[in-house]
């Protein structure tokens, strides 16, 4: 299958390893990956902070960039959530019904990584080997906007050599929330502290998730604590052999 990779702005600029892992993984499963180089950002930060007008050109650009592709994947639950639930809303807010329809069509062909693997490609065992103690944090947008449910866990359970440790209070938000982490930094830190306590209580070496942004938050906290536990994106675990 020919799959277009939407890496997200954060992935491109700060976490290229997540993009490389996604390419490795999908190619190993026998698929062709293309990277539409015009892509930039889905506009989630603008939309969620209230800058709908500024988000409109980003939505228009994203739709135009990905319209030619039949299957689009992003290793990010929140960006897929934005594409699926907010792009058409922004277009309609600007009274551009045509754009809204096009956005809905692109959204219908856009999948989060675990959705693509399990629902579209029909694989749960991707042939990975990762000899570490790992705990999984289901990020809020994967969990509640996309309802990926246990798909990431099903993929992780097939990884050889890995010990999967259950994360207590896993469905609690890590406190990132985009600009929330800046605007309400103290509350965000309190939420992060509890998330880290739960992660550390598992004894895991690695905390994983399907969102680079939440991992940046949790990982930034764990690093500040010199905790010895690191964060690794789900795609990287699934790509390792």
């Amino acid at each position, binding site marked *: 299958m020919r799959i277009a990779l939407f890496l997200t702005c954060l992935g491109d600029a700060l*976490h*290229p390893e997540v993009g490389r892992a996604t390419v490795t993984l999908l190619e190993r499963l026998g698929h062709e990956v293309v990277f539409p180089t015009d892509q930039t950002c889905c506009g989630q930060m*603008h939309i969620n902070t209230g*800058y709908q007008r500024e988000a409109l050109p980003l939505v228009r650009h994203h739709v135009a960039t990905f319209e030619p592709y039949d299957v689009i994947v992003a290793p990010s639950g929140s960006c897929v959530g934005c594409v699926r639930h907010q792009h058409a809303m922004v277009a309609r807010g600007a009274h551009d019904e045509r754009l809204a329809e096009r956005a809905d069509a692109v959204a219908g062909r856009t999948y989060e990584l675990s959705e693509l693997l399990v629902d579209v490609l029909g694989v749960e065992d991707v042939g990975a080997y990762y000899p570490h103690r790992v705990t999984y944090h289901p990020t809020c947008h994967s969990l509640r906007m996309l309802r990926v449910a246990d798909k990431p866990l099903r993929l992780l359970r097939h990884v050889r050599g890995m010990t999967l440790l259950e994360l207590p209070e896993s469905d609690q938000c890590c406190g990132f929330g985009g600009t929330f982490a800046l605007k309400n930094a103290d509350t965000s830190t309190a*939420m992060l502290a509890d998330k880290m306590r739960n992660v550390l209580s598992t004894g895991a070496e690695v905390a994983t998730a399907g969102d680079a942004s939440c991992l940046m938050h949790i990982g930034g*906290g764990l690093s500040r604590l010199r905790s010895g536990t690191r964060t690794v994106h789900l795609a990287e675990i699934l790509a390792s052999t």
Partner: protein
Amino acid sequence: MSTFLGIPAPRGVGHLRGDRSFPDAARGALADSQLRRNLGHATRVIRGKRAAVVGELDDWEQLRLAGSALKAATMARLDEHLERLEQEVTARGGTVHWARDANEANAIVTRLVQETGASEVVKVKSMATQEIGLNEALEAAGIEAHETDLAELIVQLGGDLPSHILVPAIHRNRAEIREIFLREMPGVDPELTAEPRKLAMAARAHLRERFLRAKVAISGANFGVADTGTLLVVESEGNGRMCLTLPETLITVMGIEKVVPTWQDLEVFLQLLPRSSTGERMNPYTSAWTGVTPGDGPQAFHLVLLDNGRTAVLGDDLGRSALHCIKCSACLNVCPVYERTGGHAYGSVYPGPIGAVLSPQLTGVEDNASLPYASSLCGACFDACPVRIDIPSLLVKLRAQHVDEQRKRAVPSAEAIAMAAASWVMSSPRRFAAAEKGSRAGRLLGRRAGRIRTLPPPLSAWTASRDAPRPPSETFREWWARERGGDS
């Protein structure tokens, strides 16, 4: 198209606006370890109970859909239902008063109490009367109001403000309650212990005296059935029922959104409410009263229908769903922000996720501009809400309203400039790639640590407690170009 019908709730009266922004007010609460412990424990217990009883029903999702549909249908013809309610209440011997805002409602209630000659009233726990600051208005007129709900009593005696819709004293523990009782209850047993039973008995003795003495009671209403002119209050302790039956005069203050067309609609809500709020299958005390019945219960009944910003909310197609709220408090108990800050940080009688959308809607967003941002948009509130209010979408919409208000300023904020710049950069792949190159200068910042430990404002809020990732030596698109030769 929506027409602007109403006016926002007036300033300077009632409790819909805080005097500090949310992040500012939250700071103190976050540092209070006792408060954090009390809240964490209480919300976790209620969350667990709720999840268990909701899990028992295999038609829970259908019930939620029904609740949501009933609310939407009712709101669409609210005027007709309210007129019907007025008609039926009047036909059964009650008197209906319409109050445009907090000031009018307070004036009406004060006058009604004064006409009875009473100088004190007993009160059933009511959000509406807290919203309008009725107790303060009565006090100014020389009338003492006694709260009779146990938690509300604790708050009142403690000279405190409620911090939860359902459990107003959630921020207090037993030891603190004992101290308040010893300090504030006349004639309390000095040997009082912090045992729940002992505390409840002390409160009971204190309240009994007031119930028997009171000539006037003031209540809120969870529902008003238009069809029969019946008002309902659901509660757990039975104290409300004492107020509703013993006094000679009963005055009910009800927000106009609380009307339901028929008894059949109640069937849905009386299933949704107790399970969502207290985690119980059925409500312990559900009291309903219709007009006046000669020789039985209060002989004078007044219903005050309160707008106070509601018709303004109603005029907004998406925003009006906030009025569907049945004040169950489920969204508070699942909200990670509320769990850490408690209710006082919201500065309004409506705290938590629903407060973060309802308060700014009632007051106009500029009077509560920090509240729509008091959420990480994790979505737990939407999942918990028994009437499926899409709180995250409402938050985003209110943020947009606030930003649009800010656009009218002569000088744009630093944030607005940054957002406009980011939009300009990111709507062009060429500009975006150039910006990525520029950000690589950031690599110098954390050269030694491999992680960045300090960033300039506003990003310093991030590095106050978290390291930031160092920009990589090569972006993905550069890697792709190198490996795969440019275009896809």
